[in-house]
């Protein structure tokens, strides 16, 4: 598989991966702020999938209709939708695109559910790899605690209850997350993850993230073209004082 740069896209994609509660969303948010405050063309992909795919996914989850295979396929459908409708156009338009999770989440999750790794990877083969993937590695107990402290209601699939690891959702979630971590670590070298120690202070991590991004991406290429601000344009328009054109003339 090739990265977006290797596939000749003018844009660059930066992804963060890690367990729930590893702090990755905070880190990518801070990265986004830093980039946009420099006036760069940044897009943070919030993963809005189209209504139709979303409807099928939530129906499957609510009614617990999903098997490992259909769970994998419906998420791949959802990803393909966002990839083709959103990411590819942005990457062609030369944006810096930030993604909170990418295909590696699916690789880890589906394999933990028992899907063959080569099958899952093959399905996502249409997608280019990120130009940088940060993996936030926190101690399992730390990330578990963060999630379990804040949000005691675990959803069925989120807790991996379909795997029958335990009848207790919290215990199931712990085992599931532990297996996810194993999968992430096994992929780390293969996919060139930049591993960030997520037990450090937020600032320390962000400093490292920014340092790596500025070293590996030529940020100047992503500067927005200077355009007069709206207020200036409005003033200029007001100064022209031209009489309004008659309707017939304007329609011609």
């Amino acid at each position, binding site marked *: 598989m090739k990265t977006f740069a290797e596939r000749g896209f003018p844009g660059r994609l930066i992804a963060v991966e890690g367990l729930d509660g590893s702090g990755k969303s905070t880190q990518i948010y801070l990265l986004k702020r830093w980039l946009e405050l420099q006036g760069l063309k940044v897009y943070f992909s919030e993963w809005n999938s189209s209504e139709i795919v979303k409807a*099928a996914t939530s129906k499957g989850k609510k009614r617990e209709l999903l098997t490992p295979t259909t769970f994998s396929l419906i998420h791949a*459908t959802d990803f393909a939708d966002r990839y083709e409708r959103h990411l590819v156009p942005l990457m062609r338009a030369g944006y810096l695109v930030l993604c909170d999770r990418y295909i590696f989440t699916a690789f880890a999750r589906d394999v933990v559910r*028992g899907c063959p790794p080569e099958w899952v990877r093959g399905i996502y083969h249409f997608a280019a790899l990120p130009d940088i993937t940060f993996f936030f590695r926190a101690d399992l107990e730390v990330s578990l605690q963060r999630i379990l402290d804040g949000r005691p209601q675990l959803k069925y699939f989120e807790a991996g209850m379909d795997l029958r690891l335990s009848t207790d959702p919290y215990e199931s979630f712990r085992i599931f997350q532990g297996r996810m971590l194993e999968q992430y670590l096994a992929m780390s070298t293969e996919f060139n993850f930049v591993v960030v120690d997520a037990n450090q202070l937020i600032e320390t991590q962000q400093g490292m993230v920014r340092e790596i991004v500025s070293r590996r991406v030529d940020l100047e290429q992503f500067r927005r073209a200077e355009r007069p601000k709206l207020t200036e344009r409005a003033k200029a328009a007001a100064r022209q004082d031209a009489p309004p054109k008659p309707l017939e003339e304007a329609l011609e």
Partner: protein
Amino acid sequence: MKRSAKNLIVVPRRSERRFYGHGIPKVELETLAGKLIVVEGADGSGRSTQIALLVEWLEDTGHATVQVGLKRSTLVSEELDRAQEGNILSRSTLSLFYATDFADQLENIILPALKAGFIVLADRYIYTLMARDIVRGMDEEWLKNLYGIALEPDAVFYLNVPPEELMQRNFAKNLSLDYWESGMDIGLSRDMFDSFMQYQTAVQKTFKYLQREFGFTIVDGMRSADAISADLRKKIGAVLAGRG
């Protein structure tokens, strides 16, 4: 001496089972006692007629049947319909959506029915899905991996009807041509007639190409329904007797 009714029923012989690729995790293939029969062909090729005739014959001869087809899953069939109405999904997305529909039926209908010893009649299978996508330029290896989940059927019949005849049958039945069956999404031609002919010709070529790989039986769909049915019964009879 009068033969008892019992002796007229052929008890199907077990077949060697395999998935095309990775398959579905944790399925014990040797427990699948039933048979999987697939009828493939374009709209207007006579698939539903043939399946109805087969069901009648199979039930008459003591076999229980279950029918599956594309876009019939509980999971995504409605959503697939809506997506197609608006033509809002791009290529890989639509393709994966169909694969989800297929997988849902495979796991929830086909495999349990085979385990219970039913004859499963599939009104199209992965070959139509693959052929459509190949015509749309999707990568063949990608498709083979994706549909490696599929179980190899006991028999696959492709009802071959030339595009000119399909065109006539579609008009006779619906008075119009279907947007997707005309391949209008590909943009071959703005003219629906031209697009239909080009698209169906391309699909047919692809089926012949896939036939070499998957080895299904090409059936001449230009004959009468009864003649075709007799042909299918003969072949399926052989499959049931373990001579397939």
